[in-house]
């Protein structure tokens, strides 16, 4: 890591934010104060020490490098910024992301990308349970494995897993597409393996390219999605309620 000139770090010149010196609120407020077209497009956050809500709600196309591990909700509601966490992320990274991208160099905890509406979330390590729960348009690429109940009630968007998936993948899934290269411990209710057609291979290649994944062929993946049997009430199931 390059040496940081501490004397330059004031609230008025905050491209480098050391969270040992300044508060998380000052960081997030400075990011929220960015005007459209600002020249302050490169940000660096030092010593996050597992802090919650680092760089939440950023709505300008800036690049933010976080040097260390973060706690809950890093990059939540991100709209257009490019966030890189050089460490691991706690629960809910990129929750409800709208656009832009978040890359986690380490692992991610529970419900990474939950309810995300757009943008790209890349996890270079593993993600734990409930990855992509209720995703609504986000694209998520996990280099490692994902935990149980991932893509639960996933509505749209794409989840790409280069490793394995835990139990109950895609339970009660709507129209999201799930691509898994390794084994799947079990599929959730109404989630089935589907045919990989040309358009899916092309889509997946595009996702791998955007996530910087090389040396992996889309044909190595299986596609999973909704059997659409839960979309309408089936009178034969009335006794179950």
């Amino acid at each position, binding site marked *: 890591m390059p040496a940081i000139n501490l004397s330059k770090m004031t609230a008025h010149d905050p491209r480098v934010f050391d969270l040992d010196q300044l508060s998380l609120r000052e960081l997030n407020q400075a990011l929220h104060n960015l005007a459209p077209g600002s020249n302050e497009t490169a940000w660096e956050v030092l010593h996050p020490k*597992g802090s919650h809500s680092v760089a939440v709600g950023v709505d300008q196309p800036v690049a933010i490098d976080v040097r260390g591990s973060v706690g809950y909700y890093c990059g939540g509601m991100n709209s257009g910024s490019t966030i890189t966490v050089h460490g*691991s992320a706690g629960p809910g990274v990129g929750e409800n992301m709208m656009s832009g991208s978040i890359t986690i160099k380490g692992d991610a905890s529970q419900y990474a990308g939950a309810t995300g509406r757009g943008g790209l979330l890349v996890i270079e390590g593993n993600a734990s349970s409930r990855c992509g729960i209720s995703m609504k348009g986000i694209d998520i690429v996990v280099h490692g494995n994902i935990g149980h109940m991932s893509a639960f009630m996933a509505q749209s968007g794409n989840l790409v897993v280069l490793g394995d998936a835990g139990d109950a993948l895609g339970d009660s899934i709507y129209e999201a597409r799930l691509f898994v290269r390794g084994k799947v411990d079990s599929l959730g209710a109404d989630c089935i393996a589907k045919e990989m057609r040309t358009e899916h291979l092309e889509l997946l290649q595009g996702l791998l390219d955007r996530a910087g994944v090389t040396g992996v062929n889309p044909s190595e993946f299986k596609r999973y999605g909704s059997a659409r049997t839960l979309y309408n009430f089936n009178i034969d199931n009335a006794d179950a309620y």
Partner: protein
Amino acid sequence: MCGIVGLFLKDKALEPQLGAMLSQMLISLSDRGPDSAGIAIYGAPSKNEAKITIQSAKPERDFRGLEAELARAIGTPVTIAVKSTHAVVRTTPAKIDEARETIQALRPDIRIMGAGDVVEIYKEVGLPEAVVDRFDVRKMTGTHGIGHTRMATESAVTTMGAHPFSTGADQCLVHNGSLSNHNNVRRELIREGMTFETENDTEVAAAYLSSQMAHGKNLGEALEGTLSDLDGFFTFVVGTKNGFGVVRDPIACKPAVMAETDQYVAFGSEYRALTKLPGIDNARVWEPEPATVYFWEH
């Protein structure tokens, strides 16, 4: 919500710092639970003495003269070291059960926090920092310890409702979560002869483990049993005289992070709790798997 921490030292050189390390870990999680906090520390064993940690809401009244009265009643020397609302009673291991019963007869308002060869337990209503300061936990030495900061859900905010819960010699447990079948399990354990101090769900989990270990299971096997016999949300961190264990329920909603180096194994509800540990940047850091038992023994 609640925040829990645990630290199991492998490197003896760190033992003088156990209290300081564990205190710092717990304080870092203060905003996960402001209601009450507690710490259990496993100190150095001594052949000639066992310990009972006692608590009173009126320590000036209850602890005054107790040392002499207790020694006279059980016919054995006793020392009592008072720390605020708590005190540690030391006597010969052979007399520890008798001492415990006699304390309760002499001073009915005194509550037993825990007993054993090595464990001391301190817990009170208030923030972790206040509890750590009140009992001077930072200066304590030991081999391992666990801590808890509570956001109450299942029972009242009282000293007795704070964690850790201890239901067997040198055994204690902290819990993040809530159990839904604790009344049933409590009834079954009462039928077996276990006694309970509170209506708290976590005390049932602690008593369940004590019962399993009393039936000959080791810590790992006892923790395995929680997965089938306890219903609800839980991340448990458990201490025994020479061991330290962790288990999460199969749904694993309650957060957990672990770190291991050549010097220690550490647990935190969040990574924040681990950031000041020595060598954390090069530690193996991972999220414990759901429905998987982890334990270490000295």
